């Protein structure tokens, strides 16, 4: 399998994961969406030197990973292109931040700390979003967005963009295959044809997404995702799940949980 087929395969796999009938997949999409947003806001709100506080936020992705019955290893592998990007953004940070700070009794260069917190914030955000889409189909996410009164046109746009990525990748696959068949023994694609390739790609995938949009319209799509929302009702478990996490997340945000816990254990054994 070449790189492109591999990406299509993985994206498809994400769809399949989302369609499973696991406990986590059955939670109301609005609950998962709200929690994800809330979590991201909290994570981002940590001060750039508050490494210990931020570390405690790891609890959410770790626990949700377990609840979702997703393989941690495979998920990290799937995110292998995104995570390094997040890290690169963090890496330039020490160049600008030269302050000294005290963390758990150690004096450290502020730049290093803020680099780590920045990277962690990025990773946590990516993980939270990944957990949402690996357990919730795009239709359900769109349905939840409609419940939050996001305008139809924006929701449709999100849905189509998601489908568009597939179409685009498949077009890339077709084009590169037909190119490679006619340029045997050549590695990669010669830069001279890049321009026409990209143009072709755009036109063809626009054409195709128009086709898909038409096919949706002909089958009664009106931007409302009514059928998704009709099927979903908040059950008691959803409320408990939501409230549980709201409380935990707020506690983790307000109290320096890691310091408290380590103090407690020191006291116990010391």
């Amino acid at each position, binding site marked *: 399998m070449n790189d492109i087929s591999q990406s*299509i395969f993985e994206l498809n796999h994400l769809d399949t994961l989302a*369609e499973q009938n696991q406990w986590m997949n059955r939670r109301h999409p609005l609950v998962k969406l709200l929690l994800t947003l809330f979590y991201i806001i909290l994570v981002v709100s940590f001060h750039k030197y508050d490494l210990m506080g931020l570390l405690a936020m790891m609890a959410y992705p770790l626990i949700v990973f377990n609840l979702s019955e997703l393989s941690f290893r495979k998920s990290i592998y799937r995110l292998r292109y995104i995570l390094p990007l997040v890290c690169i953004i963090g890496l330039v940070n020490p160049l600008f931040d030269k302050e000294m700070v005290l963390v758990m009794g150690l004096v450290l260069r502020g730049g290093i700390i803020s680099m780590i917190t920045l990277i962690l914030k990025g990773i946590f955000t990516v993980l939270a979003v990944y957990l949402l889409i690996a357990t919730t189909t795009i239709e359900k996410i769109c349905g939840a967005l409609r419940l939050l009164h996001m305008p139809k046109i924006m929701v449709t746009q999100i849905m189509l963009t998601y489908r568009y990525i597939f179409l685009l990748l498949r077009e890339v696959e077709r084009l590169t295959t037909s190119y490679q068949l006619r340029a045997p023994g050549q590695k990669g694609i010669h830069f001279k044809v890049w321009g026409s390739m990209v143009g072709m790609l755009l036109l063809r995938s626009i054409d195709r997404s128009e*086709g898909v949009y038409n096919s949706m319209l*002909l*089958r009664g799509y009106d931007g409302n995702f*009514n*059928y998704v929302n009709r099927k979903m009702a908040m059950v008691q478990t959803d409320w408990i799940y939501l409230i549980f996490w709201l409380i935990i997340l707020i506690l983790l945000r307000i109290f320096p949980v890691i310091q408290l816990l380590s103090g407690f254990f020191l006291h116990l054994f010391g």
Partner: protein
Amino acid sequence: MNLLTFDHVSFQYENGLPILQDISLSVGPDESVGLIGANGAGKTTLMKMLPGLLLPNEGQVTVADIVVNKKNLSQARRKVGYVFQDSDSQLFMATAYDDVAFGPRNYGHTEEEVAERVLTAMEQCGCLHLKDKQIYKMSGGEKKLVSLATVMAMRPRCLLLDEPSVALDPRNRRNLISLLNSLPVAKLIASHDLDMIWDTCGRPILIDQGKIIADGDTKTILQDKELLEAHGLELPLRLFKE
């Protein structure tokens, strides 16, 4: 009563070249009509006007007595099922089941009704075994059958099929023909496959450069070698054997 009518319809794309010129025709509620013509004759364009994917510049199109215009679009669309020439445009969900279920779900059926419709439609179209298969992993012919099922699940009054036999192997092509003949709805089938038209349609309409050239019964038109050749087509293969 006529199910589909074109009344002096003309159409051009934005670039201005006239594609359809003064088309008038009608299709009855139980009729199967073949739309034949060379590449670029305007078959797809004509079909796209029925569910209002394209609206006429002049004249009027009706579906089950509903005038197809901006206002009546969603009503008119419920009456016809359109199977695209290109299955990749038709299918967009992850699995076949979800794709076939998309229409019925949008029309507000309960999940039991949806399941019933989906399974019946897939059974009818001979693709029930593909139910849980990912669309991305299907062959061209399999996608065609699933496309047909997506439309049948909506139980339309009329089927519009654009090149349905393309990408099917001989066995599936034969299955499709007997399937089409068994479906109790009106059909409009655009195709170059004149043998299939011969087997499925009682009435072919020949178009060339956006005009109706001939409209009559199958035996008369499909055996008229000169007429067909003058408009870029050939006799059905079965007639060569004799």
